[in-house]
């Protein structure tokens, strides 16, 4: 019995649904003057790495800023690790790290001095802050350049220094706002690798805001898509892909209309896209061999058959077309 209980406990721990939400949005709305920026965002975000997506002006950065306490909600609220952003802002800020989108640094300061200062402001004693500053800079790959003034850093190095200051105090949640902005491919790869390493360490949750779908696809397990300040989609990327495994793309020759109608009669959704192509979603209990049987029945050749998994781009575009969704 005890063993069963322990096993059950471990199973529960592994299930993300059993964790307290990292971010809990409770009808969060933000207005700048009379202009609504975020409108009634609601949901529980639980992933280790959450991608924040949306077209420019969708409210991604405003959401991060509101969660950090830079903007006050016009209505509703949000909780981070169970703490209210309006009443426990200071406590929340001691748990989070933030890498801003824009170029942000303190001029005429060496990287190690800068990161140490940021660590001390987070509450680390001077000696510990210095030690952690060295560690953080080595970790992000700026070890050899840590005594150089930040003014002399390249854009990529400045991005890494920003990441170092965001992680120096060992936060439990890290907000990364467009971390790969302006980076060349090797620097981008390095940044992505670091983000994934932090995610895989299991010691910090990550919220990554980006307009680059590839970045989010490579780093995040869950995505939250904003459209015009509203929540368009929140989903687990892997679950979403799994649910679309029966999405097929066929290239045919012959009487395509009859073939499609017969497939439709089996209960499969289909769409004729021209150029002898048929897109369809297989229903439960329908196998690919059934398609070949119908094709043979109507004298249709299936020249090509491919499984089409929904890419993040598909999910994103669908969200942009469909409008507002929810959790």
């Amino acid at each position, binding site marked *: 019995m005890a063993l069963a209980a322990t096993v059950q406990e471990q199973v529960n721990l592994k299930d993300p649904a059993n964790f307290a939400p990292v971010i809990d949005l409770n009808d969060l709305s933000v207005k700048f003057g009379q202009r609504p920026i975020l409108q009634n965002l609601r949901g529980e975000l639980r992933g280790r790495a959450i991608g924040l997506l949306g077209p420019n002006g969708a409210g991604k950065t405003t959401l991060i800023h509101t969660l*950090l306490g830079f903007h006050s909600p016009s209505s509703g609220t949000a909780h981070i690790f169970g703490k209210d952003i309006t009443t426990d802002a200071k406590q929340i800020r001691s748990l*989070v790290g933030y890498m*801003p989108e824009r*170029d942000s640094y*303190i001029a005429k300061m060496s990287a190690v001095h800068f990161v140490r200062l940021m660590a001390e402001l987070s*509450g680390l*004693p001077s000696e510990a802050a210095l030690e952690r500053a060295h560690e953080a800079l080595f970790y992000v790959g700026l070890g050899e350049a840590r005594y150089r003034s930040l003014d002399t850093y390249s854009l990529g190095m400045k991005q890494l220094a920003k990441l170092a200051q965001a992680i120096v105090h*060992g936060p439990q949640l890290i907000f990364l706002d467009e971390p790969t902005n302006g980076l060349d491919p090797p620097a981008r790869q390095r940044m992505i690798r670091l983000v994934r390493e932090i995610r895989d360490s299991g010691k910090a949750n990550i919220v990554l805001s980006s307009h680059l779908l590839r970045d989010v696809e490579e780093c995040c397990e869950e995505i939250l898509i904003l459209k015009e300040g509203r929540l368009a989609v929140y989903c687990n990327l892997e679950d979403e892909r799994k649910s679309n495994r029966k999405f097929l793309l066929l290239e045919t020759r012959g009487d395509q209309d009859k073939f499609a109608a017969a497939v439709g009669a089996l209960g499969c959704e289909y769409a004729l896209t021209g150029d002898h192509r048929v897109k369809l979603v297989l229903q439960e209990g329908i196998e690919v061999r059934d398609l070949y049987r119908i094709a043979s029945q109507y004298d249709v050749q299936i020249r090509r058959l491919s499984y089409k998994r929904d890419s993040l781009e598909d999910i994103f575009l669908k969200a942009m077309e469909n409008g507002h969704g929810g959790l």
Partner: protein
Amino acid sequence: MAVYEHTYKQYLGKLTPEWSRFLVIPRHAFRDVFKSKLFTAFFIVCFIPLLIEAILIYLHHNVNALAILKVNVRELIPIDASFFQTFVNLQGTFAFFVTLLVGPPLVARDLRNNALPLYLCRPFSRTEYVLGKMSVLLILLSAITWVPQLLLFLFQSYLEGASWFVHNLALASAIFIGSVVWILLLALLSQAVSALVKWRVIASAALLGIFFIPSVFGEVMNHLFLTRWGNIISLGALIKNVTAGLFGTFVRASGRFTDWDGRVGHEIIVYEPPLWASWFTLFLICVICLALLSRKVKAYEVVR
């Protein structure tokens, strides 16, 4: 995240008390400020008048030294309210120049490089940020104004005796309040200007302008309208009056003009603005500076 491990790790050690975190800013700023040899030299020069003050106090009480120097004690400057007031004003001038060198880049540099979100995304409030930046000046200026002045006051009390100390306690409070009001005003003004102007040189020029342009304008008004109310816009005159009030040397009737009506001359006595007006103006300036700081010191400016 150890250097040799290259892994991410959380910090589980002790944290510093929240109230003390604003002091991190001046500690790091001093390192930067004293990197400049020119500034360090100037800061040392600021102590020369205090050394002279100490020597004068010492001479007053050392008969042997007076005999060697062949100086009569009556020929020396008396150690009274005017003596301390003069040195408070002199150190105030040095404090102004120190502010001019240190103050303008404090906030401007952070604003120019978008550093404010980095401060404010931590358990560190806007008030603590402003307090931290102001502390840089408040500590530096205190070191050359009221702290040494009060030490010299105690030195004089020690040499003169306990009764002198008791009878002149008001002088100590005048030294303290006069200096603190001045350095607070300098710190607030320089921070407000620094928050408004993102470039150091322009911020320094603006700070100079704030002190000198209204003074000149006020002086012109005084001469044109045969008044002293023009002093109400001159920061130097305001602080001079306030300090004089604290030391008990303030006189409202501060000048006489002869107004010629044909061949007949009328003597007009001009009066300084009352002390309450000077205090009120200084208070108003401080409030405006705080309002400006509250408006500008934000992680991000919202475009409505």
